[in-house]
């Protein structure tokens, strides 16, 4: 548990006058589940975007497995074993859920085989297996543009998991998932990730989810990390409770 998988040092990124990252230092330990919490606009998504190569920081460095990945393309970073899911699900809207996930499975091999079907047994079975674990079997043949918000979110995460990453970054995995299903969904997700020994960083607004599944919590505030530690400590800190007002807490 004590080995650092991802290390961010001194990350800065400003959009005009907005400091979306204002000196982020964070080490993600191998095997841990790290939750990121914080108010809207704190820079949580920006951190994921910088880590996955979508945004390039103005300053600072990110290293993964001891190698510098700052400024690499999303493609190069995925190839190194970092996958992500999105705050707004990014699905291939005219494809079915099964095709979406199968395409992610296929992309591990490159997708350059032009004459054998995407839904060949190897890819299809793996996609179906994942869909079953995520409870999506019933909508496997539904086109992505016809899904409800919760199902889109899950399909989006299933695609990221299908890439078999060693580090998975999830941006609000449970938003849009019905409150009654939330805990089940996260439970399943956590099991899948633990089985595959995936390290996970997830942005989360539901403190019950954080308390139950995170090994550590990082509190984001105006582009900085205001607090970092085990959920028990961090969430009971009055300063954090003040900072992260507006977050939901179930009774």
């Amino acid at each position, binding site marked *: 548990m004590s080995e650092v998988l991802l290390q961010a040092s001194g990350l800065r990124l400003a959009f005009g006058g907005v400091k979306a990252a204002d000196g982020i230092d964070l080490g993600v330990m191998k095997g841990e589940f790290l939750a990121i919490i914080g108010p809207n606009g704190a820079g949580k998504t920006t951190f994921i975007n910088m880590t996955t190569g979508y945004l390039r920081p103005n300053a600072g460095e990110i290293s993964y497995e001891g190698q510098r990945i700052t400024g690499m393309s999303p493609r190069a970073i995925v190839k190194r074993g970092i996958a992500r899911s999105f705050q707004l699900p990014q*699905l291939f809207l005219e*494809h079915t859920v099964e095709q979406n996930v199968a395409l992610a499975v296929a992309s591990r091999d490159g997708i350059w085989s032009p004459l054998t079907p995407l839904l060949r047994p190897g890819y299809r079975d793996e996609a179906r297996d994942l869909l079953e674990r995520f409870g999506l079997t019933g909508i496997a043949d539904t086109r992505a543009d016809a899904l409800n918000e919760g199902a889109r979110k899950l399909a989006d995460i299933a695609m990221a998991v299908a890439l078999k990453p060693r580090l998975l970054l999830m941006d609000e995995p449970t938003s849009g998932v019905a409150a009654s299903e939330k805990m089940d969904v996260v439970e399943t997700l956590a099991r899948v990730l633990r089985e595959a020994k995936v390290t996970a960083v997830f942005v989360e607004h539901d403190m019950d989810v954080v308390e139950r599944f995170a090994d550590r919590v990082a509190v984001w505030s105006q582009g900085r990390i205001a607090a970092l530690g085990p959920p028990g400590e961090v969430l009971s800190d009055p300063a954090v409770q003040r900072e992260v007002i507006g977050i939901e807490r179930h009774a």
Partner: protein
Amino acid sequence: MRKIEPILAILVAAAMIVAAIAAPWLRFVLTIALAKGIAVMGILLLLRAGQVSFGHALYIAFGAYTVAFLAPRFGDAMILLPLAALGAGVLGLLIGLFVTRYRQIFFGMLNLAMAMVFYSLLEKLYAITKGSDGIRVEIMPIAGQALERVTYEWTIFGIALGLAFVLGFLLRLYLASPMGEALAGIKTRETRLEFMGVPARGVLLSAYVMSAVLGGIGGALIAMTSRHVTPLLSYWTSSGELVFIAILGGAGGVLGPFLGAAAYELVRVYAAASFADAWQMILGSVLLLVILFAPGGLWGMAARAIGGRGR
């Protein structure tokens, strides 16, 4: 539906052969339709990625002029066809490296620009191209056999039909493959591909090269059939015609381009004969009706009539 497609393809092919036997002039029209259908499969390929090329007549013209230029030297259809395909593929790669950086209207217009540059070259370089007079293509031997006119025309018809089958079959496999589905992914979520480690531009570029090859083959067949090439082959209206046929035929299946091309050529010939100057108006009305009432094109209509989905 996918199972019915091959059967339908065989029926369409049989109908074409019967028509070609019944009337020699139809044999000419249908050979041109098959050639255009092959080129329009290239348009369909790019449509999968949500991109419309308004300049693909460039590759038809390139294939056609390749035949016209090289026929005196390598005068055999079986050598000229692969040469035209290869040449168009190389040209497609060079132009594709540039145009696949762009999407939507920019992609469409850059292709148009390329085709118009080629058109101007064909017009202006009179010493080489004979300008707007164009170049005549003599009847050439096929696989070493010198043929008299009717046999030659039948053989070209047969080659066009055979190529339509083989290329249509390959395209169909491609579209259902990871590569083809990734191409379709460009239409809806290109960035996701990058986050899956897939180079979206490479996927589009390879499809673009394939579409250029299809255009080159179509152009070579057109040159061998009409036996006269002119710069008009590369004019923007010719490119528009390909898009027209693609929409008329429907982009849902590989049969669409051929249904579209056959319908287009037949309507054109009949309308031109019966209404002289009004044939564009008739074609325009047909396209309008298709867009309004049958967005899946002729293929979509056929598919629905048989009771499946057009896509």
